[in-house]
């Protein structure tokens, strides 16, 4: 399984040091340097959600790039009603979901045939002494189950919101969550 371990960047800018509204306004006026500041502040959070939803580092990096490019192109629509971080995070989620649209359509029915195999696969000990790596377990989930689990349990979205975002029925979203938790529980036992 592809490693999804975090890599710390030395360029992170503390979130509370500069007035973000002012930076976003400068970026909206075409100031790329200001937009880079926004990127540096939020790339970690954006990449985290892309990585967990996509379950694949390469795709996550593509989606992170796409999200920031789309944010740049849509800055004129950013009114500052929410924080820039919230706004770009939403763009990132939509970007990954769009990439998985086909898989989500196919996941309208929850299939559990392969779950026993997934539950039986032992998780890799990526950090000896600290238990198994949940990130890797999440990455190994079936696509729809992974997305519902990340959106519900990690991002705190409701099933109604998830249904609206993914096009799945609320009941299907609940079934995928149940399935994801069952697989993860089994992996945590190993």
């Amino acid at each position, binding site marked *: 399984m592809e490693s*999804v371990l*975090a*890599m*710390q*960047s030395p*360029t*992170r800018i503390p979130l509370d040091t500069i007035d973000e509204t002012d930076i976003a306004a400068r970026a909206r006026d075409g100031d*790329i340097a200001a*937009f*880079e500041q926004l*990127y*540096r502040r939020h*790339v*970690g*959070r954006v*990449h*985290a959600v892309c*990585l967990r939803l996509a379950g694949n*580092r390469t795709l*996550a*990096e593509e989606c*992170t*790039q796409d999200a*920031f*490019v*789309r944010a*740049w*192109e*849509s800055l*004129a*629509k950013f009114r500052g009603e929410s924080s820039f971080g919230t706004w770009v995070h*939403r*763009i990132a989620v*939509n970007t990954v979901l769009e990439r998985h649209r086909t898989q989500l359509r196919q996941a309208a029915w929850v299939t559990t045939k392969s779950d026993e195999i997934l539950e039986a696969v032992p998780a890799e000990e990526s950090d000896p002494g600290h*238990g198994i790596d*949940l*990130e890797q377990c999440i990455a190994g989930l079936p696509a729809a189950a992974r997305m519902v689990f990340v959106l519900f*349990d*990690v991002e705190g979205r409701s099933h109604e919101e998830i249904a609206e975002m993914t096009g799945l029925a609320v009941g299907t979203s609940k079934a995928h969550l149940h399935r994801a*938790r069952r697989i*993860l*529980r089994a992996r*945590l*036992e190993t």
Partner: protein
Amino acid sequence: MNNVNDDKLQKAVQRLPQDIDPGHDLWPAIAARIGRKQRAARPLWAYALAASLCVAVGAGSLYYGLARHAPDAAVPVEVATTASPGAVYYAQRAAFAENSVETAPNLAPATRAVILTNLRIIEGSMQQILAALEKDPNNPRLRTLLYDLYQNEARLLAATQQIQTTQRNDL
């Protein structure tokens, strides 16, 4: 057992880091893509404006040059244009093109104004060339200029469509 594992799962979820940096700096690639899009977007306007101004000036010079040497140079352009059997068609065509830009959704006001200005320059040039062709129907240079204007108009309308599509695809 499930409760124990649920608790274990919940705790593991709570321990997940909020931020995960990518394996390498993505900014250079993002900056390059933003820069490419800016370069791609800007010359579209620069090209449209330059091309239409160029053709307008060229067509104007040519028309006035021809008109000065023509025996009926005193005939106003409007009369000659109106006398053309295709004048109604061209006027309706121009009105249709302008209307499509005026009613296009998802266009910023400033963008719409730039497109309309360019479109009117092109249409004004077309009218001048059509008037000149009334007097000199077989002039190859006039026909080439008219052909170039059609192409510029088509490119401008295609660019408008492209901008709309881009903006519609954004959030």
